[in-house]
């Protein structure tokens, strides 16, 4: 058993706000898949906002503190050494906080003062390792193990894997990536592709897998967000995809909502369905659609899933 395989069997689970709100389907499917795979999630106690995106844009060091508190609780109050965050925003922010605390004196000073004032132990770099849900499943179960557990193959389902921007950028906060064979790539991420292929899916060519979805400006410049999303959807459809698989709640809800908005605002209708990768893995593991929250998605994929024998 590899170090990571053993280390990631039981992790502190940081759902973040999206997974308790707009992305309950992602939370539901992550927990269900973990259970089906025999992995253990322990919720971070009394977790707080990671500081994305609003706090970071006002004061990046407050964001660093907020993310550090989550890691401090996991390390000092729960005795955990791994925090798993399925949300790209949370994952990114915890990684960024780790980087800042390691490299910036002023960040350490602010976090130290605020932690003392808040009455909890100051997070020390290296106390926990932050990982994404993709790392969690890939390192513990792996493609081979997943393939052996598939009860309902995704065979015939054509998938465009959309990672979004925060999973790989900026490169310097992800020192474990771009480390050669077996590691994730920041320019061409593939962990989601690998897992879904192991579950039987056909991954289509999709050159916009890390392209901007305009999520930050969905309210301030909705038309721009709609155009960016529409272009991503068109690229997925041009590649022949039935489904865009997602691993970020911001991307996921943006794709779902702007797909509808593109129809209403610009009269352009597209067909591809938007589904979390954990939902697809859950279906492949034999879980019922309701168990993985298919009914909670805005994008109605049930007919497609029935057609493919997955529901």
């Amino acid at each position, binding site marked *: 058993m590899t170090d990571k395989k053993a280390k990631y069997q039981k992790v502190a689970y940081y759902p973040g706000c999206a997974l308790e709100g707009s992305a309950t389907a992602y939370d539901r499917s992550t927990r269900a898949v973990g259970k089906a795979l025999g992995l253990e999630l322990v919720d971070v106690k009394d977790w707080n906002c990671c500081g994305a995106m609003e706090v970071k844009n006002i004061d990046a060091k407050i964001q660093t503190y907020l993310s550090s508190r989550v890691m401090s609780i996991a390390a000092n109050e729960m005795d955990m050494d791994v925090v798993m965050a399925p949300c790209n925003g949370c994952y990114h922010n915890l990684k960024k906080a780790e980087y800042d605390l390691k490299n910036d004196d002023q960040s350490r000073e602010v976090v130290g003062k605020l932690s003392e004032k808040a009455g909890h132990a100051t997070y020390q770099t290296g106390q926990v390792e932050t990982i994404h849900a993709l790392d969690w499943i890939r390192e513990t179960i792996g493609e081979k193990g997943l393939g052996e557990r598939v009860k309902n193959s995704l065979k015939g389902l054509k998938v465009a894997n959309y990672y979004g921007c925060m999973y790989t950028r900026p490169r310097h906060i992800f020192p474990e990536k771009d480390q050669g064979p077996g590691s994730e790539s920041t320019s061409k991420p593939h962990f989601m592709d690998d897992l879904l292929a192991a579950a039987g899916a056909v991954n289509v060519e999709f050159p916009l897998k890390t392209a*901007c979805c305009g*999520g930050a400006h969905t309210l301030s410049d909705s038309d721009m967000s709609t155009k960016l999303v529409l272009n991503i959807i068109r690229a997925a459809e*041009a590649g022949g995809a039935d489904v865009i698989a997602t691993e970020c709640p911001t991307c996921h809800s943006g794709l779902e909502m702007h797909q509808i908005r593109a129809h209403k605002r610009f009269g352009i209708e597209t067909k591809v369905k938007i589904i979390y990768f954990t939902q697809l893995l859950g279906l492949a593991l034999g879980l019922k659609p309701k168990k993985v929250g298919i009914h909670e998605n805005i994008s109605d994929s049930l007919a497609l899933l029935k057609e493919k024998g997955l529901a």
Partner: protein
Amino acid sequence: MRSIAELEARLEAIVTGQGTPASAEELLQSGEAVLEHWVIAKGEDPTTDEHEGFRLLALHRQGARDDASFNACRETCRELVYHYNVMSDLNADAESSQSCLQMMALIANHLILFVGGKMQEAGLGDFCCSAKPLHDEINDLSEVTDA
């Protein structure tokens, strides 16, 4: 030089199959043109250099200098170049060329939309790169630690 609005309109026409068909050369040049707009808006002269054999990549490096958020379109630029190279090898295969050209048009369109968006809203792409807060940082620690 074509305006961003003109570039966007032309790409939309290509993507939706209206107007005259595009060549790989035109799509690559469209990408260069929108990056030229970005560089000029930063008060610089667009480079005529090439990086890895492509002016597009040199322009991207120039555009991203002192603005890490511009790296949010780095892979889009590289995908455009990749598809241009693939197109160069597909001359004899009409069907593959057609689908590759369509994908290349969508990539070019994304670059134009993203950079065009940043010309309107400089913050586009900022939170993903997290390198450039939209507002000045609070440098006086007492403001955040002493209440």
